[in-house]
């Protein structure tokens, strides 16, 4: 059984392509379609790693990450942020709310895989 990764992205296509890629690399994938759903799924599935899109409806990725880090049961799950914003402040904010890595779209899936592997090692 591979490690379990939660992907939260409101962009259906981005979610699908990351899911297909990571599944092909042997990971077990669960998905969420917005920030609130991501919180629920994280509690239900207790994943080994969470990939969070920044721009999501209801609550954005930064907020989700902050809430995860405040939750004693979830705070140890490493978070990788995906964002269409390459602004330095945005990256800074991602690190501040507790993300391990901040990746800008469009990204090289193999690099994402390398990041995930190094975190889960």
């Amino acid at each position, binding site marked *: 059984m591979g490690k379990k990764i939660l992907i939260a992205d409101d962009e259906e296509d981005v979610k699908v392509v990351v899911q297909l890629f990571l599944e092909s690399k042997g990971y077990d994938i669960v998905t969420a379609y917005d920030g609130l759903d991501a919180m629920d799924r994280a509690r239900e599935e207790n994943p080994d790693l969470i990939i969070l899109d920044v721009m999501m*409806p209801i609550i954005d990725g930064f907020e989700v990450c902050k809430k995860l880090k405040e939750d004693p049961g979830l705070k140890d799950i490493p978070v990788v942020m995906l964002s269409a914003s390459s602004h330095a402040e945005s990256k800074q904010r991602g690190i501040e709310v507790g993300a391990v890595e901040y990746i800008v779209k469009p990204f090289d899936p193999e690099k994402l895989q390398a990041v995930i592997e190094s975190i889960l090692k």
Partner: protein
Amino acid sequence: MSESNGISSSAEGSGVDQERYLRLFEALSPLVAAQSVDDLAKAACSVVSELLEVQACSMFLAEPGGDDLVLKAATHIEPDSWSEIRISRDKGICGKAFFSGKPVLLTSEADFAEFDMEPRSELGQASCVVCPLFVRGEVRGIINIANPLNGRVFTARDVGLIEAASRVISGGILNAVQFGETVQIHAQLESLFDNLHIGVLALDRDLRVTHSNWRLRSLRGDPDSLVKGRLLSEVLDPSLYCLTRRLIRDSLKSRTVEQDRIDGRMGDKSRMLEITVSPAGLGGDASTECLIMFEDVSLDEEVKRLREADSLKDGFLRLISHELRTPLAVIRGTLPLMQTCCAKDNEKSEQMLNKIESLVKNNVSKLTGIVNSIIDTVEIENGSLKLLIKDADISEIVRSRIEFAKLDSEAKDLAWEINLDDSLGPVAGDETRLSQIVFELLSNAVKFSPRGATISVSTRRDCCDYVLRIANGGGGIAPERRDTVFDKFFQIDNSSTRAEGGCGLGLYLTQNIARLHGGSVAIVDGNSDETVFELRLPFAMAEEALG
């Protein structure tokens, strides 16, 4: 020697004296209106010497800021040398009159001797009266009459007359000084008026120019041209006249300041002018009915235009740097998947390849859509977007676009409530553009509906308009914010309500394209939890005639 305190009342009484007083006043009164002190002095000396029958009369005035008294006029000295003759204000007979503020009468050798003076026979001076001239309560000069040795010796009556004359002359001096000051103030005001960066015209009730300033004349292209007395219609280009006339009418009617901007011609140059009309309540200038101010704001407008262009550029940059990333990320993400599929050759890879193909297609079409939106926006901005107008089957267009939109809505489990009147149409329009805007409104509804919501679509006739109504369950939009959703690059920036990205051009283009068709798009009232867009398009002529 006698002083004025001893002689002041001695001129009263006799009828002869009274007549001389009257003649003196009569002759001096017009001088009060003199506009220069020099003219006044010259005329006064000649009047006094004639009416008092004296040999010589002279007038000295204090030099402003100096110690001397300067000769302003003398009946016995050539005018050319007047200004060169100066006497000290604190010496001699004149100095005594100047400082005491009282007339001095000299009638004997002894009197002259008191001032260390011989009676000067060469000037014929054997008797003289010096009288101070007061202006604004201060001694400003003296007037002097003198008779030769063999002439009449002055008496207290002469002193009385010259005192009376000096009061009239003092009034004249004050008037001339004030006139000079007024001229100076007038020149200063005129210069201020001319130096205003705003062109000003003052008009009388017949709309004839009563005043104009340098700036106005230079805006017209010729600062030296004569504008005064001309009709407004002759002074302004017709492009400006109509608006100005309307502003004047409104301003005079309501007694308010009226203002507007117009792109008009002035001085053979097209300018953006801000015209302000103010009803005149100018004190004392009853001839002026109103003031019109012209300000060249072409530069302001240019700055505004450049700012808009700059914000457009910023918008495009944001668009390119942000909105293009997501579809690119998907396409980029499919590359390693393809390699995996190519490496294996089984049923699962086949399915995967189909999936990849649809992802790539979908996202290439998103990218194409963004690029097309940018091109359409540029064409709308510069007015080059062309429509291919014909009778367009709008009912068919709407039906087919709904089918496409339904495909997009599957992932969100949206329900559709469709109520179309298929008998409607056609409308006059460009089918491709109509498809584009109908689809934009439908996909907008899909985008902003929460999962599981219902989208209602209906069509109807309203007078000469075809009306498409699309309601989504994405929550209402406050009336005051409804227009802003059609702004260029508008995005709901609050990430909590941002269901999906988009380039922020869709609704802007939709509204502009609808307008190019003579129609409109607006957000109208609906239930509190829904946003309702209404697209209106005029029916084609044939249909209109049937209807």
